[in-house]
């Protein structure tokens, strides 16, 4: 829109930009500002369009506030649960779940690794070890001698 040929800046383009950027010409892209100012000088319809946009802006700014019913504020304030509980829940869900999940995953990984590495001993090897352990040939050396 802002790179348009100066020749195409007609009333409808002016209207489109007026709706896009509003009545404050300082907020328009500089290259369009100059063309808009030129059109406003020469075109009665452009001036009328600008006046309507100004009128619309004024009307919008004067729309009355749709104030809340008098009791609503106190209903809201008294209706909330104690922060201690909701705060804990919110804190847990918002702030603690990541580290808690990381800790739980680490624990689960460690447990799984431990279970995986605890292979049952080969039966022959177990027999051999018990024979060796209780064999009379195997005696503790007497270190005092």
């Amino acid at each position, binding site marked *: 829109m802002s790179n348009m040929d100066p020749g195409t800046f007609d*009333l*409808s383009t002016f*209207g*489109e930009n*007026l*709706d*896009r*950027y*509003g009545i404050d010409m300082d907020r328009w892209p500089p290259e369009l500002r100059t063309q808009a100012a030129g059109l406003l000088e020469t*075109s*009665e*319809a452009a001036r*009328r*369009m600008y006046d*309507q*946009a100004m*009128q*619309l*802006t004024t*009307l*919008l*700014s*004067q*729309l*009355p*506030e*749709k*104030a*809340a*019913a008098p009791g*609503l*504020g106190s*209903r*809201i*304030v008294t*209706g*909330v649960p*104690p*922060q*201690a509980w*909701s*705060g804990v*829940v*919110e*804190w847990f869900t*918002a*702030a603690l779940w990541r580290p808690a999940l990381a800790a739980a995953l680490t624990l689960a990984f460690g447990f799984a690794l431990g279970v995986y590495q605890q292979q049952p001993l080969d039966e022959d090897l177990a027999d051999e070890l018990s024979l060796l352990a209780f064999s009379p040939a195997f005696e503790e050396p007497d270190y005092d001698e």
Partner: protein
Amino acid sequence: LAVRTNNDEQDEALLAGITTGDRRAFEQLVSGHLDSIHSYLYRMTGSRADAEDLAQEAFFRVWRKAATYQPGRVKVSTWIHTIAHNLCVDMFRRHRESPTDGFPEQPDESTDPARVASDREQQRLLETAIQRLPDNQRSALLLCQVRGFSNAQAADILGINTRALESLLARARGALRSGLFANGEESE
């Protein structure tokens, strides 16, 4: 760029108080933002009852989620409007209907009793025209032109980029302008 004011700092302090369960801080925050939130929701939904329900739920969420607010990223008012807007969008999704029958309830005569009849008529026409805008155009227009958010802040609230917001604003303003001033729109 958003400029931080004393109000913003005060709001952040109130939110910090809310995280520790300070109901007084919550009360102050509610009283400071309720009318603005309610007004936005009222104009979005066209129903006082829906606006009240959504405002109530929005502030409950503020109470529950105060600890998740990130100071400096957005202003507190932007954050609360984001919560309210998302609730509104959720409601529209659930109902899949948007108010198009104009403003069903009594106009606020109490706001300015001296207003002349023609002004009231013009305002009524404007309210009706706003209600007839598509939801996303209406929210963009209300946030920027009525609630005074910058384009960047409004884009944040709606979860879109600034260019997309400008397009929504352009379509909304164009629709209102041609709706309200249809007879003055002749070309030369």
